[in-house]
């Protein structure tokens, strides 16, 4: 059906349903069903697209299109001198959704904030186990260790007390798990003996209210007419048409059965870009794919050896072959869309002859090593086996003999963490909260050795800088420190940084105001449809 008649049909059906005519409906061909509708229980982007972005708000939010944190349900906040106390001043007059299953009797207030966090934090809270979930992200971001208490100061003021100063804490509060729920609604569900409905029929303060969900088929939302951001959202109805196959999503986009689709098949992108009925936006993903040497094992404990190997790697060939254009060479361990990215750093030149000479100068001859290839596909590495083969070939040219190994994914993650591990590991990371700490400390800090730090790299000058940045609350100073950390990283080369993925978003030409979000979410609050 052509889009025009599709839209006519919309107004027809809606007017038959007694609603006002000339309503605009944005259809998004999403890639899968959400796991549930309580975002704090889950970690996947598919679930967040359907829950935290349309339905909920957080105290602070990411400015769409950036990793910058801006006020959300908190109008302002301040940190104490010692960085241990954060006080949030809440926005007055914010309404929770009114639906056919819940009508709020009061506005959003501090009780809702305390409830939203205590249910994840306090094992004695009746909600801690009520939904059968395990608060994966709250735990994953170490919130239980970080938070000492959460207090309601008055109806519109909440205070978080921390166990240690930690600047990325604010960015954590902008994450999906920190979405604010209605305590009044939760209480009503608990009284009715149906707490599991919190995960099925959500109530939030966000731009869209939940209307209906049919598993694996469709999710319907309607505009929240009382949304606290003036003039938003711009469309009257939002529909997710769940379509798992990427080629089928493209056909639906062409047929006008949806306006926007995520995750196109890389092989279709050239054709999409040539098609006047499709606009394709693109942006680097908030991720990095790398090869981590074991810096505790000779000869990889010598930075000269690591840098020599990095120079032998033809990254452009990897981008062309493995990513088929949907990737970009990585020179730093953090992606270019992240604040504090140090663009002044230049990447190692691809120079096999110089690499060979450097290895010889370091006294390394007849080197043989293992390279670990992941068994799964990831945005930061769509084909690790192929990537390993290309690197094997490159290293072969400077006389280094490479054996490729692989394990089942769970096994791979476990074994590659081992300090005694033999060989260099292909792996990567996708950012959680847009804070550089989430890459540099997690992946390269001393605490991560034997765990998420696959290079087993604990280098004091680097560690000092990132620890300093963690406890500094001034953004300008933090930026300076992270830029310095990236320089130390480059000079020490615990990894070969290989690639950042490039994310493509095809949409129909009448879609206006869509902004790609570096954290990967698909957000439709400010999107409108041209006549």
């Amino acid at each position, binding site marked *: 059906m052509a889009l025009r008649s599709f839209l006519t049909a919309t107004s027809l059906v*809606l007017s*038959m349903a007694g609603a006002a005519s000339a309503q605009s409906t944005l259809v998004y061909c999403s890639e899968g069903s959400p796991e549930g509708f309580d975002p704090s229980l889950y970690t996947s982007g598919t679930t967040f697209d359907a829950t935290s972005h349309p339905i909920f708000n957080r105290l602070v939010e990411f400015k769409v299109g950036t990793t910058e944190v801006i006020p959300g349900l908190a109008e302002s906040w301040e940190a104490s001198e010692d960085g241990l106390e954060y006080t949030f001043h809440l926005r007055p007059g914010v309404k929770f959704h009114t639906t056919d299953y819940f009508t709020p009797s009061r506005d959003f207030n501090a009780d809702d904030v305390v409830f939203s966090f205590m249910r994840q934090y306090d094992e004695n809270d009746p909600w801690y186990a009520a*939904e059968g979930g*395990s608060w994966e992200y709250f735990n994953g971001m170490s919130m239980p260790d970080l938070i000492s208490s959460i207090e309601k100061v008055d109806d519109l003021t909440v205070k978080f007390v921390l166990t240690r100063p930690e600047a990325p804490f604010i960015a954590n509060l902008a994450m999906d798990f920190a979405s604010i729920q209605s305590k009044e609604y939760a209480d009503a569900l608990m009284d009715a003996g149906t707490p599991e409905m919190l995960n099925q029929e959500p109530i939030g303060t966000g731009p869209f209210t939940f209307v209906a969900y049919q598993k694996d088929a*469709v999710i319907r939302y309607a505009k929240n007419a009382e949304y606290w951001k003036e003039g938003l959202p711009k469309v009257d109805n939002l529909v997710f048409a769940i379509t798992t*196959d990427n080629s089928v999503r493209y*056909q639906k986009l062409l*047929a006008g059965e949806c306006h926007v689709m995520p995750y196109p098949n890389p092989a279709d992108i050239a054709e999409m870009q040539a098609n006047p009925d499709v606009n394709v936006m693109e942006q680097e993903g908030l991720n990095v794919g790398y090869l981590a040497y074991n810096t505790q094992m000779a000869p990889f404990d010598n930075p000269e050896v690591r840098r020599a190997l990095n120079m032998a790697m033809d990254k452009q060939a990897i981008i062309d072959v493995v990513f088929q254009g949907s990737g970009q060479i990585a020179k730093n361990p953090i992606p270019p869309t992240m604040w504090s990215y140090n663009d002044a750093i230049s990447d190692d030149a691809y120079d096999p002859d110089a690499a060979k000479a450097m290895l010889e100068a370091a006294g390394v001859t007849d080197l043989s090593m293992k390279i670990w290839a992941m068994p799964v596909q990831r945005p930061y590495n769509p084909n690790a086996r192929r990537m390993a083969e290309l690197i094997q070939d490159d290293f072969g040219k400077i006389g280094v003999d490479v054996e490729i190994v692989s394990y089942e994914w*769970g096994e791979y993650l476990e074994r590659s963490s081992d300090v005694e591990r033999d060989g260099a590991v292909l792996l990567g990371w996708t950012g959680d909260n847009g804070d550089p700490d989430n890459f540099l400390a997690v992946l390269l800090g001393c605490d991560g050795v034997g765990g998420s730090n696959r290079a087993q790299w604990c280098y004091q000058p680097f560690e000092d800088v990132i620890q300093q940045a963690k406890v500094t609350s001034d953004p300008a100073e933090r930026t300076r420190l992270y830029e310095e950390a990236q320089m130390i990283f480059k000079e020490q080369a615990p990894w070969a940084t290989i690639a950042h993925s490039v994310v493509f978003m095809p949409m129909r030409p009448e879609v206006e105001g869509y902004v790609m979000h570096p954290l990967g979410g698909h957000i439709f609050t400010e999107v409108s449809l041209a006549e």
Partner: protein
Amino acid sequence: MLRYLLSKLLTFVPTFLGVTLVSFAFIRVLPGDPIIVMAGERGLTEERYAELQAQFGFDRPLYVQFWDYLTGVLQGDLGESFVTKKPVWDEFFSLFPATLELSIVAIILATALGIPAGVIAAMYRGKFFDRALMSSALVGYSMPIFWWALLLIIVFSGNLGWTPVSGRIDLLYFFPDVTGFMLIDSLLSGQKGAFASAVSHLVLPSIVLATIPLAVIARQTRSAMLEVLSEDYIRTARAKGLAPVRVNGLHALRNAMIPVVTVIGLSVGMLLAGAILTETIFSWPGIGKWMLDSIFRRDYPVVQGGLLLVAGFVMVVNLIVDLLYGLINPKIRKR
């Protein structure tokens, strides 16, 4: 007849136990610890791992886990999905009508086209019709479903614009589920055009799903017909001067139907397997896609409960087929 039915029902017991055990074992044999897979690159601490193991009950010996599962099943409790936290039973019955609707339409299509094709091929044995029909059947039987579905979408939805690309009904029709069967619900809704939209959405997926059973039924009908046509009584009928339509249609076909009905019954299992791919590509919200997703997520309760329910359904269908034999051939009924 009652005794026949009872003896058939008795054979359900060991089959049911076997399926319960196999479905329980199957998902656990696959490599991949669900907790480590869930944590991914982010990893988790040993304490957290132990905590989650206890929460999911994986810290208990396997036989204890199986016993709990089995006693649950006998009380009608299949557990809750690890992911959605909803009872497996509820999820199955909200999705199964979609699969059933698609499968019924597909099997009707396959039978309605497959039996005449087989009869015609048998009547013109070795002639052009026979060869053309049987080579098409071979092509259909060997067709990779995924590719075939995409080809149909690109031609009929993309280029010609005759059919919708995917889904069960145009998204703009919005009415509550009554029976779960879109063809019926769309009529009940009273919304203009809803039924036509539901029918148009069924066209491509049912063709795709019917392709393989259609080929099997056509080939089976042909060979059964050929066997029957060489029987003495057919020669006698012909010698008596009966019209060929009467000979082929009445005397031969009825006797050839027994193996054909067996094949139709067996294709129900095949249809449900085919539904996984068909549902995935047409975004058809049925149990095929649901089970597939659950295997990837190592969602144990859904995989084992889903397998059990599907197996139960196939067993019931086969029972019905057995009873149908009795209708076609009274000799079987009396045994």
